[in-house]
């Protein structure tokens, strides 16, 4: 795929801080943004944090309970902003996705109320005081492609 991902530094810091607060457990949320007119560039503009979740050092399960209203509000903005993917942390671990992550993205893409076919997965490797590294993966045809 010939695509780009752009995220403002302020939003990246917001995501990192949310993840560090939950250290040493994993944490995550929804990515909001919009595609450029030619669908080549993803502009990530916001994150929604889940109201309900379960987490441990090696797993994170989020609920989408209560986000539909916020998604509708974001879609009424100009430009329209919408759900574009997910992020979660890997405390003291690499940014490599797991099979659980890949299966999650397959399920999300195939879900009936998801209109986009290439959602993005962002994985952040963190430690107790900061960010080690982060990666974006773009889902395509049952694979997660590392964004270059």
């Amino acid at each position, binding site marked *: 795929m010939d695509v780009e991902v752009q995220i403002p530094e302020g939003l990246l810091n917001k995501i990192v801080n949310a993840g560090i607060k939950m250290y040493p457990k994993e944490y995550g949320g929804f990515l909001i943004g919009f595609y450029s007119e030619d669908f080549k560039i993803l502009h990530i503009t916001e994150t929604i944090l889940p109201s309900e979740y379960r987490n441990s050092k090696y797993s994170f399960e989020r609920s989408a309970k209560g986000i539909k209203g916020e998604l509708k509000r974001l879609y009424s903005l100009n430009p329209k902003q919408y759900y574009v993917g997910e992020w979660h942390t890997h405390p003291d671990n690499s940014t490599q996705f797991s099979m659980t992550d890949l299966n999650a993205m397959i399920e999300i893409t195939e879900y009936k109320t998801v*209109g986009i076919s290439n959602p993005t997965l962002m994985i952040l490797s963190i430690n107790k005081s900061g960010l080690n590294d982060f990666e974006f993966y773009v889902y395509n045809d049952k694979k997660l492609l590392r964004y270059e």
Partner: protein
Amino acid sequence: MAINKKEYLQEVLETHKMSHVNSLLDKYRDKRKSIKEALEDYYTDKIYSPLNSGSYAKHTAINTKFDLDVVVPFKKKSFSTLEEMFDDVFDFLNDTYGTEATVRKQKVSIGIIFYKDDDNHEISIDIVPGRELNEDQYNEDNKLNLYVNSKYGLLAEKTHLLTNIKAQIEHIKSKDNERKIIRLLKIWKSSNNEDYKSFLMELITVKAFDKDNISGNLWEMLESTMEYIRDNITKDGFTLSDPGNSGNNVADTLESWQKENLSTKMKNMLDRIEDNSDNLKIYFPVNPDFKEEDNTKSNEGYGVKTGASTFSVPTQNQRFG
């Protein structure tokens, strides 16, 4: 016929993406993982968690020439000298991998080049040992002293180099346009057998963007960066600060005649491309191995399901690992 320089360079970048060599990368990752585990098992509480670094971590790698780097942060009291640390890591790696790889001391790292496998793949991993500058502070300040094994620019052998690998990665990671230009300059370097250090090309590109407010399309950004190098690298007092240690002037890794050469090469390239845009193909070739594949996929952007809109409500509950 003149080529469209912007579109051509986009194709060059596409054909050099690491995603074209995923199966090879998997082998690299497996080797890197086993080396990291071996180091952690052997050095236990003498080290902090090894850290991935290098061009792959910085997203500036190209698929024609790459290796994976691992930084091993040692605790302050682990060894009394940096040389002892460097030699001990070399001995351990040589004892562990010496029968399946060439293990060699390099400037600040130890290179492990595994013998070719059945697919004719040669996996190369660089291990960079470093010792924390301040006792028990590595997790806070990320500062490491590296051992300089052999002459490194103006740095003599058997000396040390203070750096901050995490700061180096952060410095480039979120700079999308700069990374494209860095990858193009690395493609030039690799395909024309130029010996300039990638780190230097990274720093000078980032500095060009900062100082000259570079913008425009891919060709315009590359052209402006090359002009910046041409006009500045030979200037007295021109510095390239290592983001991991502002005291390191990476421009000093070049002798003055090498700076002259680099400036001249940039001038010649710019002149020849100005004369005939087809000359761009000489300096920045596509990777022919992935040209055909690229032609079928280059227009593929993000997709929306047939009959759907971009509005999406994701799955109610979802588990990640």
